[in-house]
């Protein structure tokens, strides 16, 4: 009984927020449909219409519903094929205009769905195709319209293929909008990276060997050649392995070997369930080595921040997407491209990693405060409940959400989808990130309202919702809190 009360209460409340929500148009259908084709029975009730979806199932056991059960990346792409929609797949009817009260409508609903199923599917296939070809059209232009790309990309990019990799590179500003400049830019950046590696990642042995005066003269062969006492020579730059001086190549190497060890440890623990990252195959080892180079290089170039645990998690989606690019040239240079994009991505939020900036205006606490303000502006009741009644401070759950760009809260394919939206926000990643975090809170509102400190903390630290499209839709509708919102320059 109680639960029902809360559901209706929540519904009313959401009603207030979503007054301005647009009804799904054909062009948005495909995205919302993406992946849903595989939904198990239970979850389908969650999607029928906008308002219904805001209430139904999300406060219930979402783990069971799981918007996207065992999602296999490759498979999703197949659903775009017109032939892929077999008749045995039950598709949600979508885009119902009338706002139905949800709860007991289950049985009735399914019947409806079956009726309209066939009709709607054709529409959807076409719409999806349109969208995909929209995307391909945009990307094939000589001069890419970034605003348009941002709009399309925010609705989700296809898995597999080359689209996401290219789109992300454009959205991050790595690739210029003019297609004819691509080759030059990529070439320059990639060779810059190779040089950086050579300059900074060289082992001291290699370094001293290269800096030797007349290396051939000095090297003697142990297994052949003249007998006699071996000549002692001067060390180059007075440098040797036990040198403790700051300028010593060896000293710097040992300082970084600790960081390198930490990076190695973290990489071992990155996505242990994914073959791409983990395991002892030579392929995954090479991947980890590439990621290690990127992180070590970043640490060397940014001595004030070096390496912080978690950076590996932020790098992972980038490196994955670029390595799995079906364009072989691009995939071969995934390391160099990932490095540049990682730097760009982090430039916005690197201050979050800086402990001594924690309490400053650019630090994590300030961002967490903005999240609170955003929640307050959008749902004061929930805000009050969290902030005062249960004292669940954003620091306890959102720290990780924000610093790691939500990589730890959802399964990998979902993270990629969320990042499509984050990267394509015209106001920047951070702005959308806060809105998504706020949306996450709103989506579990009734559970939060009925929970105490411990229950709420547990809930938020193991975020249960897997229906990403829903969260992103809610995020889209959140009105930004302009009072503390700084537009990027």
């Amino acid at each position: 009984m109680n639960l029902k009360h809360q559901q209706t209460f929540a519904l009313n409340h959401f009603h207030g927020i979503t007054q301005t929500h647009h009804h799904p148009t054909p062009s948005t259908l495909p995205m919302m449909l993406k992946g849903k084709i595989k939904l198990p029975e239970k979850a389908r009730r969650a999607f029928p219409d906008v308002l219904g979806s805001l209430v139904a199932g999300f406060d219930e056991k979402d783990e069971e519903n799981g918007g996207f059960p065992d999602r296999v990346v490759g498979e999703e792409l197949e659903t775009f094929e017109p032939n892929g929609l077999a008749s045995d797949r039950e598709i949600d009817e979508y885009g119902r205009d009338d706002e139905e009260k949800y709860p007991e409508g289950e049985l009735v609903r399914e019947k409806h769905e079956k009726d309209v199923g066939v009709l709607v599917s054709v529409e959807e296939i076409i719409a999806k195709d349109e969208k995909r070809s929209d995307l391909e059209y945009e990307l094939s232009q000589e001069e890419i319209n970034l605003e348009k790309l941002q709009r399309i990309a925010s609705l989700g990019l296809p898995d597999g293929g080359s689209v996401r990799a290219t789109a992300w590179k454009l959205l991050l500003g790595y690739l210029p909008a003019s297609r004819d400049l691509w080759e030059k830019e990529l070439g320059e950046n990639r060779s810059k990276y190779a040089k950086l590696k050579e300059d900074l990642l060289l082992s001291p042995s290699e370094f001293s060997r290269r800096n030797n005066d007349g290396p051939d003269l000095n090297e003697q062969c142990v297994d052949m050649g003249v007998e006699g006492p071996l000549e002692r020579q001067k060390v180059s730059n007075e440098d040797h392995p036990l040198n403790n001086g700051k300028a010593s190549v060896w000293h710097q190497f040992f300082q970084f070997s600790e960081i390198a060890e930490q990076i190695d440890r973290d990489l071992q623990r990155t996505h242990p369930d994914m073959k791409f990252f983990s395991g002892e195959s030579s392929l995954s080892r090479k991947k980890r080595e590439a990621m290690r180079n990127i992180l070590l290089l970043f640490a060397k170039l940014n001595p004030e921040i070096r390496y912080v645990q978690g950076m590996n998690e932020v790098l992972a989606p980038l490196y994955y997407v670029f390595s799995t690019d079906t364009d072989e040239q691009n995939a071969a240079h995934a390391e160099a491209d990932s490095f540049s994009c990682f730097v760009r991505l982090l430039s916005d939020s690197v201050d979050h990693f800086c402990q001594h900036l924690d309490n400053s205006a650019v630090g994590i606490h300030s961002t967490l405060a903005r999240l609170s303000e955003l929640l307050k502006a959008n749902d004061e009741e929930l805000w009050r409940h969290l902030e005062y009644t249960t004292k669940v401070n954003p620091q306890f759950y959102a720290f990780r959400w924000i610093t790691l760009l939500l990589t730890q809260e959802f399964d990998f394919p979902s993270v990629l989808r969320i990042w499509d939206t984050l990267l394509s926000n015209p106001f920047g990643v951070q702005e959308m990130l806060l809105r998504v975090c706020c949306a996450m809170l709103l989506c579990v509102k009734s559970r939060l309202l009925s929970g105490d400190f411990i229950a709420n903390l547990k809930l938020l630290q193991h975020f249960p919702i897997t229906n990403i499209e829903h969260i992103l839709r809610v995020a889209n509708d959140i009105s930004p809190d302009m009072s503390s919102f700084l537009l990027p320059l």
Partner: protein
Amino acid sequence: MVLVLALGDLHIPHRAPDLPPKFKSMLVPGKIQHIICTGNLCIKEVHDYLKTICPDLHITRGEYDEETRYPETKTLTIGQFKLGVCHGHQRLTSLFPIYRLKVISWGDLDSLVMLQRQLDVDILVTGHTHQFTAYKHEAGVVINPGSATGAYSSVTCDVNPSFVLMDIDATRVVVYVYELVDGEVKVDKIDFKKTTATTAH
């Protein structure tokens, strides 16, 4: 890139109280991967101290070592190089009965060559003379790191403390020689490489 510390003939506490402070300040843990010790530490405390610098410690027996269970010789492979260790006070005959008839005097190069051949190693590290030497002969290279404390030997009292640090990188070795001369640490190096790869054992 593997760093191997080679030292020996410390003769603590009988002939020297400790390693020179300037050496001790350089020998910090975390940098060195292996330690080769030619012998004559002589007490357990020195063994323990060396273990703190690096847990992978290879010691051979010197005639004054209190620990009697150290082996007479030892071999190990690092990179493409086979290394052998032996203190060098022994008569070759006692090590290898095949040389029954040869009488060896200390520091005799011939016997060292024979020893190296017998151990079949590229680099032989021995001590006993308390003098740094690095010599190349037909069977390989012999390195004597000298005495790390500058302890007197039966031959001379004028001993500069010295030790050796080898940077082994696949087929190339850079031997850094650390010597305390007039209170200052002097560092030299010796570069050599191997042209044929080691066959796996």
